[in-house]
């Protein structure tokens, strides 16, 4: 089964690179794609994607696989191992990638540069697979950095000045964070028995004695470093910029999955390398909790004030991912379960939200919130999906957002940390209120725009040929429906994920 693991990482990566090479040579010869070529491209991408997803999930569910690929440095193997977290995360990634892949077909046809887009799309799937299956810190770091490098081109896809600036911002912030992480890895190599992931940590108590202060500092730097990718304050500025200029399906991937790479990295460092005992009750934990809660509040507040639709969603991501970080910072298993559940819940919901934002952008060219008034009549299905996602993000049962927030609040109340145990839930509630405040008015205005707006003539922006009178092409609608159903199913039967 070891080969399977490697192939599941290699296949999408190779396929992606192949597409990129094709795109590159095509660009050099300056020939455009034709209809027939499009069909071939879709066929190739879909076969590759489905194959990779199948491979990755079978690798995940066929027992504990592990494989050492080769040694990067004598003492540091590139080592993959499937474990609970990896299994869980790859499932979410696969669902989102499939949904986004289907959705991209009409969307990216309009946007252009498809080969390049699908190339990086597949490549990032491979890299993410490698990332979640990484068995030690170095392997994880390797793929962490690769994630940044292969997802950056998705941000600058349309090549406008704004996009290029945002992509740079994204790249430099992320690398800054990655180097913060690497800084810590140097020290952990010295003070840990091994860098392999093991639940409970591998800290070498004898080596640490006398160096607690420096090690805490180092852990803090690592948290901040990996927190950059998760959009934690004060390093969140790149996120709204990058996620709002990327093509919508790419924003969906970035916001739903790629930011979670930071979360997973923190989970690995805190729970699998250092161990929670070392951190519990230290200043690092308190500072971490404070920053996370601050981000939860600030993110919601900024989203509430923002008028650009995708940017609002991006700020919402800043806030929501910090829910997860807050859950992790409590260092209890209950809160961690809630946090991981929120990884899934937020992933599905935010993916859905960005895809709906993409629908409006694609059909009417709308980017601002006030433009969406009265759209409910024209696109009832899309608007209903949107409403469901919005409710999920606010955390109203029976959606999955409720479950994760319930566990987060429970975990916080049971943690017996002074002040924070009750402050946390309060902040979460306030943020939920704000979330309702920035998401739900769109639904309300969408269905009840008031007298004068409803008669307004809409100019169709694009996509007439694929929609043919329907509100939206089915390849864009199906992913939305599937995600919506999943949000409900996970809300009603959360037990499936809690194993």
């Amino acid at each position, binding site marked *: 089964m070891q080969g399977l693991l490697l192939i599941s990482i290699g296949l999408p990566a190779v396929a992606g690179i192949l597409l990129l090479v094709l795109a590159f040579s095509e660009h050099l010869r300056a020939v455009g794609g034709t209809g027939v070529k499009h069909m071939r491209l879709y066929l190739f991408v879909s076969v590759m994607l489905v194959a990779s997803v199948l491979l990755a999930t079978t690798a995940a569910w066929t027992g504990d696989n592990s494989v050492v690929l*080769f*040694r*990067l440095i*004598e003492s540091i193997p590139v080592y993959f191992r499937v474990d609970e977290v990896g299994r869980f995360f790859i499932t979410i990634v696969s669902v989102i990638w499939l949904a986004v892949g289907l959705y991209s077909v009409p969307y990216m046809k309009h946007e252009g540069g498809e080969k390049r887009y699908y190339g990086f799309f597949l490549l990032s799937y491979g890299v993410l697979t490698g990332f979640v299956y990484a068995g030690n810190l170095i392997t994880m770091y*390797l793929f962490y950095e690769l994630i940044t490098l292969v997802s950056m081109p998705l941000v600058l896809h349309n090549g406008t000045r704004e996009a290029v600036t945002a992509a740079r911002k994204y790249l430099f912030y992320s*690398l800054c964070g990655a180097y913060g992480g690497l800084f810590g890895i*140097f020290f952990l190599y010295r003070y840990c028995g091994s860098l392999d992931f093991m639940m409970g940590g591998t800290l070498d108590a004898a080596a640490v004695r006398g160096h607690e202060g420096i090690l805490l500092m180092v852990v803090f730097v690592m948290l901040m470093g990996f927190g950059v990718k998760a959009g934690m304050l004060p390093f969140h500025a790149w996120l709204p910029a990058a996620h709002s200029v990327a093509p919508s399906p790419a924003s969906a991937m970035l916001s739903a999955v790629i930011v979670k790479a930071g979360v997973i990295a923190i989970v690995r460092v805190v729970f699998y390398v250092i161990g929670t005992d070392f951190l519990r009750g230290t200043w690092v934990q308190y500072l971490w909790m404070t920053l996370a809660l601050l981000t939860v509040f600030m993110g919601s507040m900024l989203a509430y004030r923002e008028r650009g639709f995708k940017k609002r969603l991006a700020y919402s991501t800043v806030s929501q991912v910090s829910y997860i970080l807050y859950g992790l910072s409590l260092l209890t298993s209950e809160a961690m379960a809630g946090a991981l559940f929120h990884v899934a819940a937020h992933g599905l919901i935010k993916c859905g939200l960005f895809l709906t934002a993409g629908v409006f952008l694609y059909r009417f060219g709308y980017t601002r919130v006030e433009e969406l008034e009265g759209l409910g009549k024209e696109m009832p299905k899309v608007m209903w999906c949107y409403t469901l996602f919005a409710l999920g993000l606010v955390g109203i049962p029976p959606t999955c957002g409720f479950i994760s927030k319930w566990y987060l609040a429970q975990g916080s109340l049971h943690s017996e940390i002074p002040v924070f145990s009750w402050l946390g839930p309060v902040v979460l509630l306030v943020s939920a209120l704000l979330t309702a405040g920035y998401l739900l008015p769109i639904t309300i205005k969408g269905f009840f725009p008031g007298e004068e707006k409803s008669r307004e003539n809409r100019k169709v922006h694009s996509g007439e040929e694929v929609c043919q009178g329907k509100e939206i092409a089915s390849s864009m609608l199906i992913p939305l429906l599937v995600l919506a159903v999943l949000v409900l199913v996970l809300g009603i039967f959360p037990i499936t994920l809690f194993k």
Partner: protein
Amino acid sequence: MLIVVILPLFAGILMPMLPFRTRKAMLVYLETVVSINSLLVLLLLLYMPEGTLTLFRFTGNLSVTFRLDGMGAVFAGMAAVLWPLAMLYSFEYMKHEDNEGSFFLFYVVTYGVTMGIALAENILTMYFFFEMLSLVTLPLVLHTRTREAILAARSYLYYMLGGAAFAFIGMVFILVYGTTSSFVAGGVLNMAGIGEKSDMLLLIYVLCFCGFSVKTAMWPFSSWLPKAGVAPTPVTALLHAVAVVNTGAFATMRVTYFSFGTELLRGTWAQKVVMVPVIFTIVYGCSRAVKETHLKRRLAWSTISNLSYILFGVVLMTPLGLVGAMAHMLFHSFMKICSFFCVGAVIYQTSKHYVQEIDGFGWRMPKIFCCFTVSAFALMGVPGLCGFVSKWNLAKAAVDSEMPLAYVGIAALMVSALLTAIYMMDIVIRAFCPVKGSDAVDDKNVKDANWKMWVPLAVFVAVMFYFGLHSGPVMELLEGMIY
């Protein structure tokens, strides 16, 4: 052993006397000489001859003597691999420049001098070739004969001579207080004879270190290097990014580990005094690189920063630090020469010198810019490329030393990695993702470079990947030569 030093010297000096009918004949002659010499060096490395070879004696124990040891072998091997490739590249590059003859003369002579430094058995020999290197590379800086070049050459000369003077002081003291002038691992100082003078000796060490590190362009002696960027690219790439500056680093390794000895130095104020400017330079060089928009000067600042990585490894004064320093010296040479040659190819093909002029060139010159991207990733320290391996070793050594100042150094390494990403990826992003509407993309005259230029680049890229993915053997070699 002598041959590898003498052959390029004579071949170079002979060059003006030989009647070459065509340019081609000259090039064939040059490439043959350099290749044969490289082959000889590699043969030497294969057999690792024991024993020393004394060329002549001045007086007493002052002699010009050669010997091949582990560290020298690494340095010599590196130069032997790089020189023929750089030669090939410069054949194409120098087509546009005048006075090819004198250029190649000094280019070849420098090879011999570098070998002399690598194989030097004692401090005097090293000093001798060290001075010589400054002198023979001077005409190369001067090459274009523009006002700028003359000014640059002047400051180059002053810095070098100043540095050599300080190094000379150190040499004298080693001759007086040492048991022998040879390089012996662990140092040659006569501990009994030092007694209370250790503070003075530490001061001398600091002076000597500064003197040699002028060549590595450590702050505050760094300004000559960006200025020297007026020289033709093969010179800036091979000499000012690799040979000359590495000689400085190599010399500091020799004096630190093989003359003064780390036993005397470790944990003293002298170590801290030299470490502070080194750490500062790591960040300073990168920051200046970010600010600089001239392509070659940007890379020159980057070199300054990276050379200080090496010095950082040296001043950790642990065997691990030396291993890290050697590794970075080796790997950095490949990374930097690759990026320099890429930039040189751009300058050669398009005569654009500034960062903002290269929008969209990535699509016009794909081979060159792919190589450049790889070298950028390597310099940033992406795992899987060689830059990561050396950074890892340096940082590991720094953590192990348990000095607070060394921790600051690691932080400096990370900051510098970020800044490196900024100034390198800036170029990559510009080249591949021009902002919509810029006209550079349509510039049909911009063509990819020909094989003489990209073959060396491809070799460098392959080497970077090889060392990055499979660093075991080379690290073992480096460790073996020190313990």
